[in-house]
């Protein structure tokens, strides 16, 4: 028997993908009319569990109860019928359809479109009034901001009369302001008696928005607690299974001479759209400059230009020497020779070759390193393997096996391999993008420590991250980017998330020139 006071009750859910047990005997009960958080590290099994609830995967065993009724959910259609709506992390929208067309897709009234479109139009007006969910029904999805696209996803679920709404990592792509707005919407839904399940790895959101929180670790449900009776520290410990330092332990920076000076950097993409519109900044030795901003506002282009991946115009000097931005010398190899190490934002596409072994990956970019050469013709693979073993030990990569393919490591350990390769070169300048994306809390702590240590050793560091927390805790100075420009510089000691959030949304503070 199940209790009808629970909107969702899962009993003994297990799911394996081949040898990997993604969910092990999961039990969870979500009371009606609450916001329930599910938190866990990457790969803890949160998304798998929710995909089972939405009929995307079939559980190997276990039962699902909706409103106290045993409800098998073999496909998404059954989930929708049971009143479950899902907002995926990657939106499931048709880019060149209008908002209306996306909303009715799959929930049309009859064979003809006209009646469905008219009904949806009036229904959307009502939902916009009730829940602050206003979007132009005739706008094309590709013209909308991500925040608005997410609203369309919520509208899709509500249009299908969802009583239970699942959101998978909803704030990853939002500015702090948009995230606040989202939480207001969720609050409104809760007040109307709807149940919300919020999946996230951000402790702050759990503390702010939820009534109860369930913690997952390595495929099991570790605990379910009332949010009011727990603390971020306790949740972090439950997630990782040991005590974790949430605050970065960092001494005062001792900036030295200017290492990198960037003036009027401009980049056009292949469609001739200007992605960088005159960016200027400098970084000193022993200093971390953090660039904050919503993804896609030019941070990537800054990293890729300095890393020698794309061409640009402007003037860049490294310790007084000009760095070519076009043609000869504007490639990754020359940059490395100039003392620039680069941890790219997308480790799967640019940081590693997943099918290659760890030791091969460790040699990437440094093939010409004298310590890797046997003689004029041959490389010394044994030396590379030995070096890899050393780096793996220093960076606590698990398992410490150099001959294992990169794809066999977890996200956190893959990132440690890339970070180890770059930091261990003792670069004068480290470019590091999204250092902890998809990395578990334990590894985040470790990578942060290494970045600080490199700074204290006198390197200049350019940090790009969409995680504002990370920017705030690591940086010695913060630059905020919006629409290909730097909106301004801030001191992390004196600024706050609200101010940065406004700048990330393009609102200039204190009358600065944009």
């Amino acid at each position, binding site marked *: 028997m199940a209790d009808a006071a629970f909107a969702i009750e899962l009993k003994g859910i297990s799911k394996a993908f081949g040898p990997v047990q993604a969910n092990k005997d999961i039990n969870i009960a979500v009371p009606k009319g609450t916001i329930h958080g599910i938190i866990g590290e990457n790969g803890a099994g949160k998304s798998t569990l929710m995909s089972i609830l939405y009929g995307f995967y079939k559980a190997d065993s276990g039962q699902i109860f909706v409103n106290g009724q045993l409800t098998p959910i073999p496909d998404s259609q059954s989930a929708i019928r049971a009143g479950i709506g899902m907002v995926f992390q990657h939106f*499931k929208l048709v880019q060149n359809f209008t908002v209306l067309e996306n909303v009715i897709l799959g*929930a049309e009234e009859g064979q*003809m*479109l006209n009646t469905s479109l008219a009904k949806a139009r009036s229904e959307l007006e009502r939902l916009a009034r009730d829940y602050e969910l206003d979007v132009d029904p005739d706008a094309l999805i590709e013209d909308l901001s991500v925040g608005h696209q997410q609203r369309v996803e919520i509208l899709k679920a509500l249009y299908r009369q969802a009583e239970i709404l699942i959101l998978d990592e909803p704030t990853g792509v939002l500015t702090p302001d948009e995230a606040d707005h989202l939480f207001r919407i969720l609050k409104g839904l809760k007040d109307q008696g709807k149940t919300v399940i919020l999946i996230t790895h951000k402790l702050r959101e759990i503390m702010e928005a939820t009534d109860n929180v369930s913690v997952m670790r390595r495929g099991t449900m570790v605990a379910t607690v009332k949010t009011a009776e727990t603390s971020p520290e306790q949740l972090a410990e439950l997630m990782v299974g040991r005590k974790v330092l949430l605050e970065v332990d960092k001494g005062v920076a001792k900036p030295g001479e200017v290492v990198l000076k960037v003036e009027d950097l401009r980049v056009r993409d292949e469609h001739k759209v200007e992605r960088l519109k005159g960016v200027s900044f400098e970084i000193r030795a022993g200093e971390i400059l953090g660039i904050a901003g919503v993804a896609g506002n030019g941070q990537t282009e800054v990293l890729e230009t300095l890393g020698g991946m794309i061409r640009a115009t402007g003037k860049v000097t490294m310790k007084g020497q000009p760095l070519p931005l076009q043609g000869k010398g504007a490639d990754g190899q020359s940059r490395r020779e100039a003392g620039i190490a680069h941890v790219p934002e997308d480790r799967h596409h640019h940081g590693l070759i997943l099918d290659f072994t760890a030791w091969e990956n460790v040699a990437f970019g440094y093939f010409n390193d004298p310590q890797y050469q046997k003689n004029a013709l041959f490389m010394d693979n044994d030396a590379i393997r030995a070096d890899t073993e050393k780096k793996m030990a220093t960076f606590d990569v698990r398992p410490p096996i150099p001959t294992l393919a990169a794809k066999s490591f977890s996200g956190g350990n893959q990132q440690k391999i890339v970070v180890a390769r770059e930091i261990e070169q003792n670069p004068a300048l480290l470019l590091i993008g999204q250092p902890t994306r998809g990395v578990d809390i334990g590894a985040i702590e470790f990578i942060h420590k290494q970045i600080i240590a490199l700074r204290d050793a006198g390197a200049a560091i350019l940090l790009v991250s969409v995680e504002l927390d990370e920017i705030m805790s690591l940086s010695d100075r913060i630059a905020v980017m919006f629409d290909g420009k730097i909106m301004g510089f801030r001191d992390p000691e004196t600024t706050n998330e609200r101010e940065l959030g406004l700048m990330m949304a393009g609102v200039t503070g204190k009358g600065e020139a944009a």
Partner: protein
Amino acid sequence: MDYATLLQILDSTLRLATPLLLACIAGLYSERSGVFDIGLEGKMLVAAMCAGAVAFYTGSAWIGALAGIAGSLLFAAIHGVTSITFRGNQLIAGVALNFLASGMTVLVAQSFFGQGGRTPPLEGAARFNPIHLPFAEAVKDVPIIGTFYHEVISGHSILVYAAFGIVALTWWVLYRTRYGLRLRAVGENPAAVDTAGVSVKGLRFSAVMITGILCGLAGAYMATALQAGFGKEMTAGRGYIALAALIFAKWRPVAAMYACLLFGFFQALALRPDVVEAVVQFKVPVPFLDALPYVLTVLVLAGFVGKAIPPRAGGEPYVKER
């Protein structure tokens, strides 16, 4: 060039555009659903052979057309199973089916009829014969309009008129019905369709089957209306020209009609090099006229005539991701 010659050329334009149009609209369904189909040519060829053979045995063009559709559907089903069910490479599957069709049609026709890979000539009810539209005789002496109606519009087989009807029908289905919305969606973002609780495979299969039916009509038209019987490689690249027209038309039905008329016009011109020479005052090689559709398509693909953006999920088998 006098008006009578122009009418003759326009008349053959309509006849030559019809198989292109049927195949082009056929491809539109498949490609809009996200399944690229380079095998239009092969399906037409199989349909032409089936239609020619069965029409010869039964003496009925209609039963021949049904046989053509059946043959084409079989090939469409193979393409569907390969590229939808087993997520194979759509282009390779299409190319393989084209090769299979090219060899098999001749082999079968040869073993049945022993006439060098042809089917015997068809006559009478075994062909789709021209039908004369009402008042065509009455108005044929009215200058310009009347002669145009009599010479160009009237006097084609039923399949020609059906092809243009199918364009209108397709426009309506695509933009005014639930099926059309889902079809367009599944070619753009199958995950959106899947999470909305609609079967991606079901939709794609239905689209591929419609492609099969329309290619069947195109092939039947070749063997039992445009010509009198099946001949080796008789489609002569029309499946590829239809594909080119589809790209030229940016996957839109009405534009596809114009593109096919244009390409049909080129083909009609290629049949009358004397007229072309008279107009441009120098001798234009026939192969140049034959190549024009492809030249135009290359220009479109290179971005000189607007931008042709294919359905975004086209060519990619749908795999559920986390």
